[in-house]
Every structure is written in structure tokens, then in C-alpha cells.
């Protein structure tokens, strides 16, 4: 075999090029503002983006099947608001049970998405767009214009307060589990198979509908979990919580090399993508760019990355053609 050039290696290994981007980003921001690289700051990047990190895993699964889910932050709000209210009205204060209930609400929301997309053959964007407004609206409805404030969730918020190990443990566990499941189990590989060629998957006896349903259910579970975590970390629950954050999650996956057409993407890439998104959010104010630029910059990054992917692919195809002898 011929040795590959560095350029080829980078274009073939998404993870390698992401590490380089990450390094450059850290160095540049570090030079402008050295305090950025402090341990506390780095730790906070993870804490502030726990929700993005966790939901990106679900989005990875969804996008591997060539789908998308933009209802996740609405599910998050509905689940979060529900457990917030359970505490506000003193129904329940057990942290573990609250986690279970929040996650279950997420599972139900996700399952509905999944069953409609799989059995009803509805385009994922349409279905999840509908539920994006339904669950967000439901969060408003159940809240009845009330918040669950820091006082309401006092004991519960200890789990996710700055410095507590809870969110990190969940984060690490989630990534370890997904890393193993996606690479070494039949279930994980079936998700890849369905996204790579749905018809072939059907012929070789994979239950496509069940796989699709479970993928959206997993996404819902993680969104519900993120809802509970959000209440814990930010010590409050309001119906508009994490509004628009689904874009961070999608951006993380897109940057991490998850293909929009399915079948391609990895847990490692998703992690790096989420990390880059987290660093950008944290770094902008530290290099004197006001917060209201955040969304614009993220939007430009998403578009730039997907367009760049297309351009790289075209150049690679073109080079392959030039190499053909005639």
C-alpha cells in the first residue's frame, strides 16, 4: 500500500482534523486571554454544556438513520418543567425518583416521535417540528405561568451545583456506554446499517421500524434526562428553558462529522464537535465578543461546516478522477 499524504489522512479521519481544529482554537483563545485555559474554566465548559454533550449522543443516533430531531429542547422543557412542578407543589423531593420520572417523560415523547416517523412514514423534520411546538406549549400549559424557583428545587439542585460531581459522572458514563454500544454491539451497528441502506437492512432481517423507533426513544430519553439535569444545574425550571439549544446539539454533530444522509458518524467525533461548540460559546465573551453574537456565529459555523464537507467531497472526487489513467 502507498503511504497516504497528511492531507489525505486528515480528510479521511474526521477525528484527527477535529483535534487539530480544537488545538488551534485553544491556542488562539489562550493567547488572547490566558485565563481561558485555567482548570476551573475548562471544567465549567463541560458543566455549561453537559446538556449539549448528552443530547448530542442521541442526535448522533438519530442522524445516523438519516433523520433529525428538533423537538429535543421542547421535550427537555416539558420534562424539566414537570419535575420542577412536582417539587414546587411538594409532591416529590426524591432526587432519584425525579430523575426516573423526567427520563420517562422523555422516553414517552421520543417514542411518539419514533412511532410516527417509523410507522407513519412522516418526514422526521415535519414530525419533530410539530412536537417542538406541542411539548413547548405543554410546558407552558402545565406551568400555568409559574416558575419553579431555586427555593422550590433547593435540595435537588445540590446534585448539579457547580463543583458537585453528579453531572460529570453522568456525562462520562453516557459517553462510555455509547462508545461501547455504537461500536461493539449488534444494536449499535444496526443503527448504522439502517442509515446506510434501509432496504438492505430490511432484506437482511433487521427490524427497521423498531430500530427507528428506538433511536428516537433514546433521543427522547436523553432529552428528558437533560431536562432533569438542567433543572438541577440551573436550579430553576421555566417553560422557555434551553430555548433554541437544539441548534447547539445539531451543530455539535455536524461539526463532529455526522453525515446528514445517514450511516456515517462516531461517538468520538460527536464528543469533539460538542467540545468545539462549548469552547466557542465560552470563548466569545472572553475575547470581547458580546453574547448577542452567539447565535449568528453558530449559524454561520453550521452552514460553513456542511458546505465545507460538500466542497471537500467534491475535491476528493475530482482528484480521484484525475488519477484515472486513460
Amino acid at each position: 500500500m502507498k503511504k497516504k499524504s497528511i492531507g489525505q489522512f486528515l480528510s479521511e479521519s474526521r477525528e484527527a482534523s477535529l483535534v487539530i481544529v480544537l488545538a488551534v482554537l485553544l491556542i488562539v483563545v489562550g493567547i488572547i486571554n490566558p485565563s481561558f485555559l485555567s482548570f476551573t474554566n475548562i471544567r465549567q465548559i463541560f458543566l455549561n454544556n453537559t446538556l449539549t454533550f448528552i443530547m448530542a449522543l442521541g442526535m448522533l443516533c438519530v442522524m445516523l438513520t438519516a433523520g433529525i430531531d428538533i423537538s429535543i429542547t421542547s421535550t427537555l422543557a416539558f420534562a424539566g418543567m414537570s419535575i420542577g412542578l412536582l417539587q414546587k407543589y411538594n409532591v416529590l423531593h426524591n432526587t432519584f425518583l425525579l430523575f426516573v420520572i423526567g427520563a420517562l417523560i422523555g422516553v414517552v415523547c421520543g417514542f411518539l416521535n419514533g412511532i410516527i416517523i417509523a410507522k407513519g412514514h412522516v418526514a422526521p423534520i415535519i414530525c419533530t417540528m410539530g412536537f417542538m411546538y406541542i411539548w413547548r406549549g405543554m410546558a407552558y400549559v402545565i406551568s400555568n405561568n409559574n416558575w419553579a424557583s431555586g427555593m422550590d428545587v433547593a435540595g435537588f439542585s445540590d446534585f448539579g451545583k457547580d463543583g458537585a460531581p453528579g453531572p460529570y459522572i453522568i456525562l462520562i458514563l453516557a459517553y462510555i456506554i455509547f462508545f461501547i454500544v455504537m461500536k461493539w454491539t449488534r444494536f449499535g451497528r444496526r443503527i448504522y446499517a439502517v442509515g446506510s441502506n434501509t432496504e438492505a437492512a430490511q432484506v437482511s432481517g433487521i427490524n427497521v421500524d423498531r430500530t427507528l423507533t428506538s433511536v428516537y426513544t433514546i433521543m427522547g430519553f436523553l432529552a428528558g434526562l437533560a431536562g432533569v439535569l438542567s433543572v438541577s444545574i440551573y436550579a430553576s425550571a421555566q417553560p422557555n428553558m434551553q430555548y433554541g439549544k437544539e441548534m447547539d446539539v445539531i451543530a455539535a454533530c455536524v461539526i463532529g462529522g455526522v453525515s446528514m444522509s445517514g450511516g456515517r458518524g462516531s461517538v468520538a467525533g460527536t464528543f469533539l464537535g460538542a467540545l468545539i461548540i462549548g469552547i466557542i460559546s465560552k470563548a466569545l465573551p472572553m475575547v470581547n465578543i458580546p453574547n448577542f453574537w452567539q447565535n449568528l456565529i453558530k449559524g454561520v459555523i453550521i452552514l460553513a461546516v456542511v458546505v465545507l464537507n460538500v466542497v471537500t467531497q467534491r475535491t476528493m472526487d475530482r482528484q480521484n478522477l484525475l488519477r484515472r489513467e486513460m
Partner: protein
Amino acid sequence: MAGKSGREISAVPEGGIKSKLLSWEGALVLILIGVNILGVAISPNYNVNNVLREMPRYLAEIFMMFGMGYILVLGDIDISVGALVCLAGTVTVLSSNAGAPFIVAVIICLGVGLLGGMLNGFIATRFTELPTMIVTLGTQIIFRGIAEVLFETWGNGGGTASMADTKGLMLLAKKLGPFPIAFFCVIIVGVIMIVVLAKTTFGRKLYAIGSNKTAAYYAGIKVERIRFICYSLLGFLSGLCALFLLTATFGSNTTTGQGFEMEVIAMCVFGGIATTGGKGNLTGAFIAAFIIVCLRIALGQRNINTQVILVIIGLMLIISVLVPSISSAITARKKRA
């Protein structure tokens, strides 16, 4: 050259008035009547005058619905339009407040919409490998992102801006007889859009592209140019929507236009346009739009929260996209029995 078997192929179109009455459009008309009866039943204020008075704010979205219908028939989707309405409205308010005369502000409003649509069209047609869903997801964040930046850098901050000089807008909010100007504009734009889609070669090309893009291209249709035109058109209509929305709100904020993309897609789908492309027509969507408008007015009069209305519209969207697969499942079951 003539067929050697002499076989005749019929060229007589089937159907007539009966099949038209039994069609989905007929059902929609009944639903529209039903919604109005419901309105009268639940709200004492639900009458012709009040409905017409409250209508303009909701009519604005219908402009966009026509453009979305074209995009869906093409087999594409554009989820950036809500954000584009926000951006167009914001730029209009800020430029008017900065001293632009009303007519200039109007041109700016339509122009921003058009440019936004052209941007979508440009990316979607230059990078055809990308699903339009991701393209417009990106521009959605960008449009709203620009508006957020403008509120802070050009306006007075706080993520909101209201129009200081509302004389021009008041003019547009006037009525001609019992009907608001917006009503006439919607009817005119609607009739043009419906006829173009149903009766012209341009409309036929949209169906061809939505049904089989490759075959359309091989048949000499300039696929990418037509897609670009449709995106630009939708952008322009988003600008028009922003303008008429201003005649009701006189201002703009970061949440302006939230959910519009879902509402207009719901109108189209409810009206019988398939999200997979190539199927449906705007007549149904037009009736469906009025169903949703009347429903909103009726529920609004009962002081039902916007969020609840969005829940209802979301449910309508999901149920109506499920209709084809449910009905085919039922026929399959019947056949088996």
C-alpha cells in the same frame, strides 16, 4: 408511422363535478364552516365584523403559505421563514426609526425578505448534495442571529424595537369597505399563486421536479433555476408577511415569527400538499389557511394562550401528515379481510 395493432388509447379525462365535491377540498370547506360554527358557539364576540377586524395579523402568514406550497411541491422544505420574517421586520423598524421614509422602509422590508430567500436558494442550488432541511436550519439561526445583533448594535437593545412613525403602517391597516387591505392582497396574491401552480407550464415544472427531479432535468427543465426562483419567491413573500405583520404589531422583537414556519407548513399539509413533493394544490391549502385563521381568532377571543394554539396547530400538522399512511393502512386491512 402508425401502431400496427391499431390499438386505441383513450384520451378522455375522467371525473366531473361529483368527484370534485367528494375531494379533500370539499371536505375542507365543510371543516371551515364547522370551525365558524364552533367559533360562534364558544365565543359571544365571534361575528363577521370582529373576525374581519382581527384578521390582518393572521392573514400575514398566508402570504408565506403560498410560497411554502411551491417549495413543498418541489419536494424541498424551508424552515427559515419564521426567522426571516423577524429579520425583515426588524430591519424595517430600525431603518424607519433611523429616518427612512415609509416607502423606503417598505422596499427594504421586501428586499430583505427577497435577499434572504435568494441566500437560501443560492446555497440549496449550488450545493445540491445538502438536504434543504439543514441549509434552512442554518440560515434560520443566521437570520434570527442577525436580528439579535441589530437590536443591540443599531437599536436600543433589549431584543426589541418598536416603530416610532406608524403613519404609513396605519395606512396599510385601513379597510376598503368592510374588508382590510391585507384581505384583498391575500386574495390577489393567492389567486395568482394558485393559477400559476395549477395552470401554467411553470407550475407543471414544479410538479415534475417534485415527482422526479432527475427525469425533469433530462426532459430539459432548468431544475436549479426553478428551485432558486421558488426560494426567492418564498423569501419575498416572507418580506410581505413581515410588512403586514407590522401593521398589527408596530414593532419587532427576538421572538417575532416564532412558529410561523410550522404554521404555514401545517396549513399546506392540512390542505393536502404532500411533504414528499409533487402532490397537492394550493386551493386546498388556501381553505386550510382560513380554517386555521378562524380557529385562532375564535380561540383568541376565549383568551386561550398562544402556546396552546401552537399545541393545537402542531397536533393538526401531525395528524394531517399521518392521514395518507393511516388511510392506506385501512385500505390494506380491508383488502385482507
